[in-house]
Every structure is written in structure tokens, then in C-alpha cells.
């Protein structure tokens, strides 16, 4: 078509106005760290007239190198959000009503101290302090430790602890903050269960990089959106069967000999001998007098410590003693994984992947790993003193996070994925997966959990850690859990991140004991961050016979008017991320790259225009008012006045503080060095971050590379070199199994004995998750966060909510036909626990038996400063109503947690549902539909036209 405009007037001749193509951009650029999600990119905040005018990525920053996602650019709408809390609030109506009175900070702090100080001095466990999307865990845990309560954790337990712990126990680190693919060299990238999330910009940058050079991306995910949409090959797997699929890949690769035997013999426990003698040592490693695992040296044929200089560990030879044949780990693996139960044909139907496809993927992995191996001309020396002239790389890399984690078989599945990488020899080699400092870090370099109650004194050690065996469980003399969330008990022995999703239900039930104060930060527990949301609201408002709340006090800190605000008695309003100090610390969850250690700060690029305070500074103030140990000098004075003071002046060990850069009086020391009072200014001058590069030659083979180990010691990451073997076979798991078999003093309760034997296999296995009660519920139901909102705190953002303001239930074509559904129809979705009625939309690029929706789009009326007719509050919904924190009752009446039996990871993605076509609800709103909460901040303005400059 060509356009004709029928007018009598002659056409106007071409004319161009004079345009200023070099307008002034801003008065000043302030460089800080984004907090729109957990990625922690560097941002340039352009200021005009003292206001935030524009936010872009910082090109120098190690995480994002200049790019920025939708959330990051929308930060300006977060900073001006009408949902920002303005002043401390004291509840005046009933819990859940949203009726508050604004109070002064002094009253707020005195109220909190009034509740807390007595607990500190008499019964510290009666404080449960749990932080959600906390990026200051090394500080919040320090506070909790000095308060003395054993009840502290952040949100890892309901997020991806399986991935993190599975990685630490297997190879001393996992994905995301622990490590990343070698994007510059990898030739095949396989993504499991990550559609749009963890992490944000680095994954997109990496995928862009490898696709630009034509490398293949394989996406394994029931949903083909986001990263899976650009994957060259999509594997629309049945949820919860990833482990089965991975073990089948392992079967095919092992059977074909497509595994890296040299790597396995040198760097893993494949050659370590396993005790086969009946008794309490059965299944543990044979060790020498120094406790070192033993191997047979291929050169001498002798039993030898694994790390003896010159030893060539043999994965084939066995060791005979007293008529017992002790076999190396690799024999056990061959026996297990070569078995026919793992053939592609045996697993195809359950995984929903044709056997031919499984073989094709295994073949492609084998081809790239072995036929396209790369060699870097780089000498290095291993921990046994052997010099290598080259760095050999097998350029296959993997990434995974919550999708495979959030199942009750997730820990073993994560272990299986790590074992697959290790069998291929792709970990810490060019083209494979690379750790980021402070990782690699073996289990031995991590603390064990601590939970002793000592009124008035600090907890006896860090709360969270990695149990090596039953002796590290947090049980009191009677065998009762020490922690309110029952972490580190027989129910979930290796719960390295705690179980935030069990805190409120256990506190409401007084099981294992009653608490007095629930103190939470950035955790929307009365809404999208809890299973059984309605039940949690009831628990938070439950009263005893005498009319008092079952949980007597609830303190909550948030920057925004979230759903959780209404359920607290005292609100401590936090700042936005541009108004605060923070440190992204090597002591915590840092922002390092595979070839550099890095940390960063946030600093107040603007001052709050409300009466709010950074939560961490409020914690310092509370600690000071209670004279908590750790925060108090010997003369009784406070050590730090606020969080910034702590960041600069706190030393965790001599010379090692929250920030590694610009240490020492002249600011020229990195890693280790005296306190530098000018440190924050130096960070600001440097763009808000610090990078310490790993020297060339130290940047691969890190767990075994002496050059890396020495550099890490210099940086203060370790105090001595920590070379170690990858743990294909997990001895800590075997120790729990041994207990379940009846060995040792610490014994599991009878009802858990069999489950521990079955699930704590020291070699990765796959098992079907508990299907009790699921009869008739056959459709898998999942959630994911859209990229433009992943990990972001608050979808009230005026720009982002225009991208994702609605969340229909996406239903595959097959189920749409079966149920006679069309777009916009309503469906009743039920589970063994509850039902919801929601709008549906067809999606073809989806596993045939899986439905899903965007998580946390649905909002409660009266929250986030949204008007009551906002689609988030009318049509939006949560799947959380269908998921209970407990499984249906067993024959003995007991209800087990809906969690991984090893780590306690919340099993969100085990949900099975039934869908039925339904009439549109009378109010045309998704059901259940809750009463509005009274908003403490009112609602946002009608129209926005946000321009701060002239």
C-alpha cells in the first residue's frame, strides 16, 4: 500500500528545525549499586537539581559492564514510589487491619527495646529474627548472634538452598554468586530450570556472548519463555524429573567412556577408597593416621594419602584387608550409574523427553567436551607440587538455580548436576564452570551450625553452617530442636539456610517452643513469600483464650507498604536503595567475577525526604540501646554509631573487615589491612566498588592451583591454603545414613529412620517426591518471576507494572482443548490443600501437563499504594493458596514438612493441581479475594509525567 493524502494544499517543502544535539545530561553522576534485584549491578545515577534524573549501568562495574535491565532503569520509579513508608508506625487496630498511628523514632526504638532487652537477658531464643531479601546477612547474622538467639536466617531456605548446599557439599561452590560459566570460551551451554531469573544481567550478557559466536544453548525447562525462548534446543521436561534426566546423561556418557578420567583421578574423590567392612565405619573413607582419605597410588600400588606429592591416584584398583575388598568411589559410581534403570529408554516417559533426544544431547555434550577441547598455554602447579604446561578445558558449561532446587528431591538433583559437570572435567577449566572468590571453598572451610542458648551472651557461634554428621545437629539434650524453624534436625539435617517458611507456623503452634517476638525484614510473609498464605494470615492474627496474640509481638521493617506491614505491631520504615549505606561484602554474598574478587557499597546519593532510617543503622541503634556484646566496648560505650561506621570500622578477624578494598591507613592494601577511616570515600571515588584481579595462571583450576590458593590467602579469603577434592561421594550424607542404620549415639526418631536411609544416599540419586494426597491432582503447577521483576522488591513500580500487571494462568494447548477453555475464560484450580478461581490463557510453548503463572503479580487490596481496581488486586492471584507448608497426614497422623528431607528447601514446585472450567466469579475477580487493608500511605497519584530537569 502506498499512502495518499487527499488535500488541496501544496505539500510543505522539507524543513528541519535547529536541534541542540548536545544537551547537558546532568549536573553530576553518582555511582552506587542497584538494589532492584539481587544482581547488584553498578549504576550511574544522573542528578539534576539534587534529584534523580536518570539511571544507567556503570560500564566499569564487574557485574553488568554498563548494561542494565528493566528493573534497574525503573529504579527512579521506586525512589519516588507512593508506597514508600514515611514514618515509624504503631499498630492501633487489630492485626491485619492496616490501622496504624505514626510515631517518633524514639518511641519506636524504645518500644522495640522494651520487648527485646528482656529476651536478650533471659530467653534469647524467644526472639525469631528472619530477614528476607537481605543483602547484609553477614551483618544481620552478627547482630542476631550477639543478641544470643539461635533463631536467625534469611530467605535461602525457601529459595535455592538446595542449589547452594548441593554445590558446597559436592564441589565447594554452586552457581550464580558462587561461580559462572566461562562465557568467553564455552561452546555449549546448558541451562536447567532457569527461565527468567537468577541471575539477571550476567546470564543475559553471557547468552548474548555465546550466541554471537554461534555456540549452542540448550534450555531444560517446562516453560519456553525468557532464556529458554532463545535456546537453540528446548527440553520441555516434566517438573521434578531433572535428576532422572541428568542421571541418564551420566549413564550414557559413562557407558561411552566420555568422562575425564585424568581429571577425576586427580581432583575428585573418585579414587578414594570406601570402607566396605560391616560396622560404624562402613561407607566412610579409609583414612590414614592424620585423617587423610586414602587412595591406591598407580605408580607404587601402595595405599597412600590422596595429596602426597607425586601420587597418581588409581580409580580402578581395590584394596583387600581382612577378607574385605574396599573399593574406590568410582567403582560404586560405575555400579550405580551403568545400571539399566538409568538408560534413556527407562526414563524417557517419566521425564517427558524421547530417548533419542536424551542420547542426542549426551552425544553433543560428549562431542563438545572431548572433540572441541581447548588448551590454554598457561603453566600452573597443583597442590601435589606437579607442574602442568597447559590448562586443558572442556568447553561445556551448565547453569541452574531454583527450578531444579525447589523440589523435595532437589538436593540430590543439584548434586547430580554437579557430578555431571565433574565427570566431564568441566569445573574450573577453560570453557567450563568457574568459581568466583571467595569460592571455591570446601565444606571444611565453612562453619558448622550453632544453636546453644546462653542468656545475656552471644550465641556460641554462627547460626548457619554445614553439618558434617549427626553430631552437628541442633538438638538439645532431650533431642528437641534448638531452632524455631527446626533447621538442622533429623527432619532436614543439612538445612544450611534455615527454613524461613516454617517460622510462622511453628511459632503459631508453639512447636518446638513458644516465642515472644517475631522480627522480620523485607519478607512478605503474609503474602507471596509464604506457602498457605491465608493460613499464615490466620496464624499471625491468632489469639489465645485470654485474647492475647499467640505471637505476642511482631516487628517488621520494610521501605514500602507491603502486605506484611499490616500484620506487624511496630513498623520500622527503611529507606530506598538510593538513600542508604550498604556493603556487598566478601564476608557475605559478594559480586565477584571468575577472575576477580570484588565488593561494593551503596551510599546515600539522595537524602530521604521522609522520616525513615536504613534498617541496618536501626539495628546498630537497637544493639547500642541494649549494649549487646560485640557492639559494645569494654568501657560500655558503643563501638559504632550507625551502619556506615560499622562497615568501615568492624573487623571480623584482625585486618579483615566488611570491605576488602582501600584498607590500611593509606588505603593501599587489599584484602588484609588496618581500618581506613576514609574507605567509603575511596569507594565512592572508585565508582562504588573495588576489584582485585586474580593473577594470570591462578585463574583456573582454583581448588588445586597453588598460585590461586596463595593469592586467596593474601586476600584474606582463607588463612591457609585449602586445596581439596571434589566430593562425588558425600561422606557427611553417609554419616546420617549410618545413624539411620543404627550406628552412633545420636539416633533419628523411628518415623524418620527409613526416609533418611532412602534419601541420604552418598551418591546422587533420583526419587519420586511424596505423592500422598495427590490422587486426582495430576497437573504440575509452577510459578516464575518475569525478567522485568525477578527478585525485585515491589511491583507497584509505575513503569514495570505496565509490562506485567496481569498474571493469567498459562495453560498448554492440550489442556485448553481438554477442558474446552479459551483465552479469558475462568478456571477453578484445586490442590489437595485449597482452590483458586482464576483467568486462563493458552500457551503452546509449554510442557503438555504443566500450568504456570507469574508469581507475586497478585497484590492485596490496600497495599503498595495501588488503587483497589488495580488489576494486580482484582485479577491477580497467587498459587501460594494451593501449597501447604505441611504434607497431608501420614497413617500415624503426622504431617511432614513440604520441604526437601535433606535441606528443608521449600518444595514449591512439587505442586500438583486439577483444573476445571468455571463460571466467571460474580465480582469478576480472582478468588480468593481478601478484604482490603487500610493503606498507611494512601494511594498513588493518577498521572505521572516525571521530569526533574528543566
Amino acid at each position: 500500500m502506498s499512502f495518499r493524502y487527499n488535500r488541496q494544499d501544496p505539500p510543505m517543502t522539507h524543513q528541519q528545525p535547529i536541534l541542540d544535539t548536545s544537551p547537558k545530561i546532568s549536573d553530576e553522576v553518582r555511582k552506587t549499586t542497584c538494589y532492584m534485584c539481587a544482581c547488584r549491578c553498578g549504576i550511574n545515577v544522573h542528578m539534576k537539581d539534587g534529584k534523580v534524573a536518570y539511571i544507567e549501568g556503570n560500564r566499569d562495574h564487574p557485574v553488568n559492564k554498563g548494561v542494565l535491565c528493566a528493573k534497574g532503569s525503573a529504579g527512579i520509579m521506586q525512589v519516588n514510589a507512593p508506597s514508600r513508608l514515611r514514618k515509624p508506625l504503631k499498630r492501633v487496630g487489630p492485626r491485619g487491619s492496616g490501622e496504624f498511628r505514626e510515631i517518633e523514632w524514639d518511641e519506636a526504638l524504645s518500644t522495640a527495646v522494651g520487648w527485646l532487652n528482656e529476651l536478650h537477658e533471659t530467653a534469647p531464643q524467644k526472639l525469631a529474627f528472619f530477614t528476607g531479601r537481605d543483602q547484609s546477612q553477614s551483618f544481620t547474622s552478627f547482630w542476631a548472634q550477639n543478641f544470643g538467639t539461635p533463631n536467625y536466617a534469611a530467605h535461602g531456605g525457601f529459595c535455592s538452598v538446595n542449589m547452594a548446599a548441593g554445590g558446597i557439599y559436592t564441589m565447594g561452590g554452586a552457581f550464580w554468586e558462587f561461580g559462572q560459566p566461562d562465557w568467553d570460551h564455552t561452546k555449549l551451554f546448558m541451562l536447567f530450570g532457569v527461565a527468567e531469573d537468577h541471575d539477571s544481567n550476567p546470564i543475559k550478557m553471557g547468552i548474548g556472548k555465546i550466541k554471537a559466536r554461534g555456540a549452542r544453548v540448550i534450555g531444560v525447562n517446562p516453560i519456553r519463555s525468557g532464556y529458554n525462548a532463545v535456546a537453540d534446543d528446548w527440553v520441555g521436561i516434566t517438573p521434578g524429573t531433572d535428576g532422572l534426566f541428568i542421571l541418564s546423561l551420566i549413564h550414557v556418557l559413562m557407558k561411552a567412556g566420555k568422562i575425564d578420567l585424568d581429571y577425576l583421578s586427580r581432583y575428585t574423590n573418585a579414587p578414594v577408597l570406601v570402607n566396605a567392612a560391616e560396622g560404624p565405619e562402613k561407607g566412610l573413607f579409609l583414612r590414614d593416621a592424620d585423617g587423610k582419605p586414602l587412595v591406591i597410588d598407580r605408580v607404587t600400588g601402595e595405599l597412600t594419602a590422596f595429596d602426597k606429592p607425586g601420587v597418581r591416584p588409581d580409580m580402578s584398583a581395590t584394596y583387600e584387608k581382612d577378607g574385605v575388598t574396599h573399593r574406590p568411589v568410582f567403582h560404586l559410581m560405575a555400579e550405580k550409574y551403568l545400571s539399566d534403570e538409568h538408560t534413556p529408554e527407562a526414563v524417557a516417559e517419566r521425564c517427558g523427553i524421547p530417548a533419542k533426544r536424551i542420547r542426542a544431547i549426551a552425544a553433543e555434550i560428549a562431542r563438545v567436551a572431548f572433540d572441541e577441547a581447548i588448551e590454554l598455554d598457561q603453566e600452573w602447579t597443583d597442590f601435589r607440587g606437579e607442574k602442568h604446561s597447559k590448562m586443558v578445558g572442556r568447553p561445556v558449561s551448565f547453569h541452574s538455580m531454583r527450578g531444579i532446587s525447589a523440589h523435595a528431591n532437589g538436593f540430590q538433583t543439584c548434586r547430580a548436576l554437579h557430578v555431571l559437570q565433574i565427570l566431564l572435567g568441566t569445573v574450573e577449566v577453560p570453557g567450563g564452570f568457574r568459581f568466583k572468590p571467595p569460592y571455591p571453598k570446601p565444606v571444611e572451610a565453612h562453619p558448622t551450625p550453632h544453636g546453644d542458648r546462653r542468656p545475656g551472651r552471644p550465641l556460641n557461634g554462627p547460626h548457619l553452617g554445614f553439618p558434617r554428621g549427626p553430631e552437628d545437629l541442633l538438638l538439645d539434650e532431650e533431642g528437641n530442636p534448638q531452632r524455631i524453624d527446626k533447621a538442622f534436625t533429623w527432619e532436614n539435617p543439612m538445612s544450611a539456610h534455615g527454613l524461613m517458611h516454617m517460622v510462622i507456623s511453628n511459632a503459631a503452634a508453639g512447636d518446638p517452643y513458644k516465642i515472644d517476638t517475631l522480627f522480620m525484614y523485607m519478607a512478605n510473609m503474609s503474602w507471596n513469600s509464604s506457602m498457605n498464605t491465608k493460613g499464615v494470615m490466620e496464624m499471625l492474627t491468632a489469639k489465645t483464650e485470654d485474647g492475647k496474640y499467640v505471637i505476642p509481638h511482631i516487628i517488621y521493617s520494610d521501605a514500602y507498604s507491603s502486605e506484611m506491614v499490616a500484620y506487624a505491631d511496630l513498623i520500622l520504615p527503611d529507606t530506598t536503595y538510593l538513600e542508604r549505606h550498604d556493603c556487598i561484602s566478601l564476608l557475605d554474598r559478594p559480586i565477584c567475577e571468575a577472575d576477580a574478587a570484588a565488593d561494593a557499597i551503596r551510599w546515600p546519593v539522595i537524602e530521604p525526604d521522609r522520616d525513615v532510617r536504613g534498617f541496618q543503622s536501626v539495628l546498630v541503634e537497637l544493639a547500642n540501646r541494649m549494649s549487646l556484646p560485640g557492639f559494645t566496648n569494654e568501657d560500655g560505650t558503643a563501638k559504632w554509631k550507625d551502619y556506615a561506621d560499622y562497615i568501615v570500622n568492624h573487623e571480623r578477624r584482625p585486618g579483615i573487615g566488611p570491605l576488602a578494598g582501600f584498607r590500611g591507613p593509606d588505603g593501599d592494601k587489599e584484602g588484609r589491612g588496618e581500618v581506613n577511616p576514609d574507605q567509603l570515600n575511596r569507594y565512592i571515588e572508585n565508582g562504588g566498588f573495588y576489584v582485585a584481579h586474580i593473577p594470570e595462571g591462578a585463574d583456573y583450576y582454583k581448588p588445586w592451583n597453588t598460585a590461586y590458593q596463595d593469592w586467596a590467602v593474601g586476600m584474606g579469603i582463607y588463612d591457609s591454603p585449602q586445596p581439596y577434592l571434589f566430593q562425588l561421594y558425600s561422606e557427611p550424607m553417609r554419616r546420617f545414613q549410618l545413624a539411620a542404620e543404627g550406628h552412633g549415639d545420636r539416633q533419628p526418631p523411628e518415623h524418620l529412620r527409613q526416609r533418611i536411609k532412602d534419601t541420604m544416599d552418598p551418591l546422587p540419586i533420583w526419587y519420586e517426591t511424596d505423592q500422598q494426597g495427590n490422587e486426582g491432582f495430576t497437573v504440575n503447577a509452577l510459578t516464575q518471576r518475569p525478567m522485568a521483576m525477578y527478585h525485585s522488591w515491589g511491583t507497584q513500580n509505575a513503569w514495570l507494572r505496565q509490562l506485567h500487571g496481569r498474571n493469567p494462568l498459562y495453560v498448554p494447548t492440550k489442556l485448553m482443548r481438554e477442558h474446552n477453555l479459551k483465552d479469558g475464560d475462568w478456571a477453578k484450580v484445586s490442590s489437595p490443600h485449597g482452590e483458586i478461581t482464576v483467568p486462563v490463557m493458552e500457551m503452546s510453548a509449554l510442557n503438555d501437563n504443566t500450568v504456570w503463572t507469574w508469581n507475586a503479580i497478585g497484590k492485596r487490596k490496600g497495599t503498595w499504594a495501588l488503587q483497589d481496581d488495580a488489576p494486580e488486586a482484582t485479577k491477580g492471584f497467587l498459587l501460594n493458596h494451593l501449597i501447604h507448608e505441611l504434607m497431608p497426614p501420614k497413617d500415624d497422623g503426622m504431617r511432614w514438612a513440604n520441604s526437601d528431607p535433606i535441606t528443608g528447601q521449600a518444595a514449591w514446585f512439587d505442586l500438583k493441581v486439577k483444573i476445571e472450567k468455571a463460571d466467571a466469579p460474580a465480582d469478576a475477580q480472582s478468588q480468593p479475594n481478601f478484604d482490603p487493608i487500610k493503606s498507611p500511605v494512601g494511594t498513588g497519584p493518577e498521572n505521572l509525567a516525571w521530569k526533574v530537569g528543566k
Partner: protein
Amino acid sequence: MTQLPNSTDRKMGLVIDLDTCVGCHACVISCKGWNTENYGAPLSDQDAYGGNPSGTFLNRVHSYEVQPADGHAQLIHFPKSCLHCEDAPCVTVCPTGASYKRVEDGIVLVNESDCIGCGLCAWSCPYGARELDVTEGVMKKCTLCVDRIYNENLPEVDRIPSCVRTCPAGARHFGDLGDPDSDVSKLVAERGGMDLMPEMGTKPVNKYLPPRPKDTIEEQIDILAPLLAPVAEEPKGFLGWLDKTLEKL
């Protein structure tokens, strides 16, 4: 009715890689941020916190499902903004001369002070790439960040459109599509870059790189099968292979 220039010195535009775009909307919001604060009136939002939020955007990402004849359905993310057409109907339709195409670089712009908000240009654009800002009453469209690409207040590396600078996947490229030797022209040639709806005769400057063929791994199995030949059929044989292989290391 407004005339187009007879020719332009350069044809500045975008090349968008549909094989790599993950649909993250980074470009959408970066554009919104830059253009709210810069060129012309801010991009406003109506009912910003209410039931039907609707704002002005110069760039949007649409997602389409594609069902091949056989094989799995695919999802294509499709970013769309003004394509700075050589034969731009939005310019010729403009009754006031507010819409124009620049001689020096081919960028199509709206001179807001001459725009009467009649909406004819948006109606004439076959791509739906123009949006009337309700608060200001003027037509808004992609400026190709004309206030960035020559801006001497920006470091040279940043003199690119904000959507290109921010794209995490590197799916957006900027350059002179009139110069066959430019990086973007070479990319278009290499990857078979396409015009959007060429049948409209608008001669768009922006190009799209098509997604590469997907889900082909099974087709390779016949070639790859030898890689999976078992070293032994029985576990015992496997240990024999292991011993032999270790011997050779």
C-alpha cells in the same frame, strides 16, 4: 502534507537480533527513562497506580508464539520502535511539517512545538510505532536518541541510543545502514537481516535478524551416534576399560 528529503547522507538505524532477544524489556524501560527526562515532553503515564495504567512508550517488546508444522512451539520476542523508514508515511501525512526526516542521518523526528496532536501520523504508520502522549497532547516516537548520539557531553562510547547501551543480551546494534561497510550492514548481510513488512513500501531503515533454526539436535544423532558407542556392555567390562585407559594416561 510534508515532503521527505530526496535523500539522506546516512541511514542511521537499529539492527535487532531476534535470535538473542530474551524479552527482558530492558530497552523499553531504559528508553522510557531517557526520553522522559530528555528530548521534548516527558513520557507520561495515566492511571499510573490504578485499574488501567497506560503510559507513553517509544519502544515496546511484543512476544509471539510460533507453532512450526512439526516440532515444539517457539516464543519470539519482538522489540518494536520507529524504523526510520526511507519512505516514511508518517512524515508525508503530517499537516503541519512537525514530522520530518533529517537529511544528515535519516532520523524521523517530531518537532513538538509544531505538532498539533492530530494523530494522522500514528494512523499512517503501518507499524504502530508512534504514540500520542495524553498529558502533553503531542506525538511521541523513537528519536534514535538524537540527543545522545552526537552529544559532546557524553563520552564517545556512550554516543549510542540508550536502548542499545542497556541491552544486556547485546541484541541491539546501532549504525549507518546506508554504508555497506559498516558493522551493522555486515551483520545484516551475514545473518540475512530482514525488513519488517516490506510489502508496505515504506523501506524501513531498521533491520531484524531472524532467529536461527531451533530444535535440531535430534537430527544430528546419526552423525553423533559413534560418540556414544559403549566401551563395554557389562559393568565388569567397564572396569577393564577403565584400567586400560588409566594405563595410557
